[in-house]
């Protein structure tokens, strides 16, 4: 008996999840990806790995200077 009850419970969970997913609001891909592009372009200047550092001095992982004050 348990296996049948288990089966039923599992299938019920799967169907309920699909019902919830079917009920969500979706937006057209054009709009969704335009918003992503906007977010990226708004933040590109803060992205050091993308645009680099204004000067290597501000790079916390720059090579240590080879000359030192004696």
């Amino acid at each position: 008996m348990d296996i049948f009850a288990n089966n039923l419970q599992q299938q019920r969970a799967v169907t309920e999840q699909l019902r919830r997913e079917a009920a969500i609001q979706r937006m057209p891909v054009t709009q969704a990806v335009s918003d992503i592009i906007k977010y990226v372009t708004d933040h590109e200047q803060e992205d050091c790995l993308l645009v680099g550092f204004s000067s290597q001095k501000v790079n916390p992982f720059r090579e240590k200077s080879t000359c030192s004050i004696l």
Partner: protein
Amino acid sequence: MSDANQVNNSSDKVASLMKEAESLKQKLEEERQKLNDVTLSTIAERLEMISYINIKPRRILKGHQAKVLCSDWSPDKRHIVSSSQDGKLIIWDAFSTNKEHALTMPATWVMSCSYSTSGNAVACGGLDNKVTVYPITSEEDISSRKKTVGTHTSYMSCCVFPNSDQQILTGSGDSTCALWDVESGQLLQSFHGHSGDVMAINPAPNEVGNTFVSGSCDKMAFIWDMRTSHVVQSFEGHQSDINSVKFHPSGDAIATGSDDSTCRLFDLRADKEVATYSKESIIFGVNSVDFSVSGRLLFAGYNDYTVNVWDTLKSQRVCLLYGHENKVSCLQVSPDGCALSTGSWDFTLRIWA
């Protein structure tokens, strides 16, 4: 009612639920296709190409005696915790490459490690099926203050503090995720739905912090509501295990990396895949992905020892980072976006900036 009747009754119900599930799946696919009016790379055509990226290897962290399996940046943008197959957890000063703490875990294969939100504790676990939290203090031996918070019925593959030091979220080979109270060790919420090992989790970047994404060997990525423990959205498309998932910094999309040698971008609001990052020449699996702070770049660590850097908008590869001498198992952009850490089966971690 007789047993036979009950069985009939229950199998009727199962059959009708399965039928409904099939029609819902079809409806979902139709709805998604209806709104699929353009591709991301078409809209991104007007953007300038990324012509040059100046990312160089800056540090090598040597000290693990076996494969590096996971690493995490401290919120202070300077320290890194890493875990290894040798059963060790090391806390590094990434600036100086010094080891500040080395902890020996009771079991080998420490598959995951994570800094708490405050940076005052780290969590880790793996083949021991457990998640253990260590407070970081100036004491010599911090292992005396360790605390076992939760236990899964199979290996723990990933852990993260989703909003504060008080709660920890874990993913496991037992195909579930779980939210634990650090202080009491109480299981606050458990997340059932995957039909394969959970390999990766990532909380949404939004302040509200009520959702997270999981990726699994069942090839699916799920978006979960932490309060209800329900799956809110599910994404399929990968042909093999998903090893890594990461939210886009906007919070509106997720990236996945898979054994099928592709990375993909799924948009939450369009509820579908909007980009695939792959090349014919790339045939090795992806173990780890992360975005640069703007979300323009996606870093992906592969089994062929390389890191590929993708332009997420134009779906083109920008460059390759060579250096590791074995599989790249983990990578992460630092919290301020200034550096990338990578960990490898070659026993080392490297910092790129």
